[in-house]
């Protein structure tokens, strides 16, 4: 006779995940490495905010008819060729190496059709990237892989990388299987090596050095294009103030939900602060410096849809920065080629095996047979469709709040569902609106 089924009595401390993790370390002798982003479920999130659209106290705009401006410009009044984005969205830095060339091509084509930018990521500018991307941000990173004055001069914006939300305080990682001959040649590294990039720039340390570095880069671009600096959201208020002091044109940060090609898992889950918590801190720091209008705030880290983007903008961001969502639009996590997910010991939706270089859908791989699975034109169309849908969602919230510009969204257009997020963001709790509850008067 079979024993009666009973629910498992897992320990909260020695949960199966913790046991698996310890036993994997016991086998490997090193920490776990994984791609994409944290898998934590308990982070405060933008979902803890809701919009409070127009009713009688404010008039909404017609959703499908009245104009709602989405354009945003970086460096206006500061540089000769400001970066004009038709929508407040940028494709985040993802390297050729981390991504396949087909993924880079598709993202560039889609971004160009939508009037927004892509970014080289680490590892240098692939010759095709400039060709396909009308607005290209060139990252200038501690590793300086592939950095040349000629490529910097081709940039529409230079982004100085000083950190990222997925793993603030550490450098890039690209494991050997993705270090193909072409990727290695662009980075001046031996093929097959496990690349571990520096976490600090080789030739500047503090913000006073950064000021000199900015001048050097402005000399390269003839003071024509904007320069931003990217950090991971951690000590965000201080970082924003220091970047503003160095006089950058834009500050980019991603919260701890930000993605990456490969990172120690423990770093993904235990470092940095969530996006929702960081935005208000960053915006407030810029207001304190008197530079909120002048310096654009670009926010990434777990942005999934137009609601997330609208909330970021309402909290003080000017632009949202997305990597993982466009990758998912490309086909990441798609339940096709299931046998290859199984071979990796995973399934679609939970995969996050970007670090292995064995991406079943041809996005985060350098193996020709896998890359061929990603049709560039079809993938570009999917990303364009996604970006169009997301832009409509953004406009939907702006119009419903009575705004004819997406950039006019502000914290008063929202309420917080939780006390924690209300405290973090300053957005009033739902049902209270800052007043004493009605029942307390009786």
């Amino acid at each position: 006779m079979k024993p009666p089924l009973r629910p498992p009595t897992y320990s909260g401390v020695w949960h199966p995940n913790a046991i698996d993790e310890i036993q994997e370390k016991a086998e490997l002798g090193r920490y776990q490495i994984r791609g994409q982003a944290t898998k934590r479920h308990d982070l405060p999130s933008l979902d803890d905010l809701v919009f409070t659209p127009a009713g009688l106290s404010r008039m909404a705009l017609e959703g499908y008819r009245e104009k709602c401006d989405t354009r945003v410009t970086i460096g206006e009044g500061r540089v000769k060729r400001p970066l004009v984005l038709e929508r407040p969205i940028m494709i985040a830095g993802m390297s050729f190496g981390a991504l396949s060339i087909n993924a880079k091509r598709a993202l560039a084509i889609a971004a160009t059709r939508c009037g927004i930018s892509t970014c080289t990521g680490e590892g240098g500018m692939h010759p095709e990237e400039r060709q396909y991307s009308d607005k290209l941000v060139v990252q200038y990173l501690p590793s300086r892989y592939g950095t040349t004055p000629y490529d910097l001069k081709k940039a529409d914006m230079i982004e100085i990388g000083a950190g990222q939300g997925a793993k603030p305080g550490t450098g890039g990682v690209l494991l050997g299987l993705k270090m193909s001959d072409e990727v290695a040649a662009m980075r001046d590294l031996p093929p097959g090596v496990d690349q571990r990039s520096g976490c600090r720039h080789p030739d500047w340390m503090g913000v006073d050095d950064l000021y000199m570095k900015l001048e050097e880069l402005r000399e390269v671009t003839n003071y024509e294009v904007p320069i931003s600096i990217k950090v991971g959201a951690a000590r965000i208020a201080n970082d924003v103030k220091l970047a503003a002091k160095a006089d950058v044109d834009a500050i980019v940060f991603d919260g701890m939900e930000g993605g990456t090609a490969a990172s120690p898992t423990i770093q993904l889950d235990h470092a940095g602060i969530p996006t929702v918590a960081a935005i208000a801190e960053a915006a407030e720091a810029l207001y304190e410096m008197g530079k909120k209008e002048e310096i654009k705030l670009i926010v990434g880290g777990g942005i999934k849809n137009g609601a997330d983007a609208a909330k970021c903008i309402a909290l003080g961001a000017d632009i949202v920065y997305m990597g993982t969502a466009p990758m998912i639009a490309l086909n990441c996590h798609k339940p096709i080629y299931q046998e290859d997910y199984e071979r990796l010991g995973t399934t679609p939706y939970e995969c996050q095996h970007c670090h292995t270089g064995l991406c079943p859908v041809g996005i985060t791989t350098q193996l020709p047979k896998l890359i061929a699975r990603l049709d560039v034109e079809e993938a570009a169309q999917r990303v364009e469709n996604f970006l169009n849908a997301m832009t409509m969602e953004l406009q939907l919230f702006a119009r419903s709040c009575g705004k004819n510009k997406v950039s006019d969204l502000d914290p008063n257009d929202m309420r917080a569902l939780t006390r924690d997020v209300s405290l973090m963001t300053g957005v009033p709790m739902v049902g209270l609106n800052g007043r004493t509850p009605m029942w307390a008067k009786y």
Partner: protein
Amino acid sequence: MAAVKKTLSIDCVGKPTREINAFIRQAADDGVPVVELLNPQARHNLGVCVLKPIHIVIRGHVGYYAAGLSDHITVEIHGSAGWGVGDNLMHGEVVVHGNAATSAAPSIRGGTVVVKGDAGPRSGISLKSGLLVVGGNSGYMTGFMMQKGRIVVCGNTAKALGDSMYQGSIFIGGSIEELGSGCEIVVPEADELDDILKTLDHYQIKAPKAFRKIRSDKSLWNFNKHDFAAWKDVL
């Protein structure tokens, strides 16, 4: 066609750096062979992003990133240099007659940077090609994360020499306070020594009696559970 002046001079006093660099680039465009900078007063970013051949003579000390992100230029600095001299040089030559501060020749992709005096910490950091020659001593983490190319230090080096270097070679004439992770000392080849001695002779730097060669032992190229002793400092 008007004759091209052999040497143009510019006094840096009172002039913005942007104007000085524009003057150098214009001179290079016009085919002027030599530009002389007077009174640099340790100014930062002099000679940045000059991409056409020209010889630049700087009469005094320079600040950060002198001759940075440039190509095909030759530069004489008759003084000392601040951080990052010759930053990301593509081709050409930068000679510092004095000392150089932190991160001399960072991430150069070609050409030669010569420091006749001493160089600070992290000299030749992330070197991607080319040659760095230090006539005197060099600070800690010389050649840190070096990828390719060659570093020659005639004097002594401080701690963490060659730490985490991927490829390339470092030649040390003096003492080594401490070798960094993932590298080893080997005996130089005769043709390498011959080449180095010719280079030192060319730059009128006194050669030490002997050189030791440092190269990557490849132990850090790939994650390996058996190498924790090496990895613990660098992971």
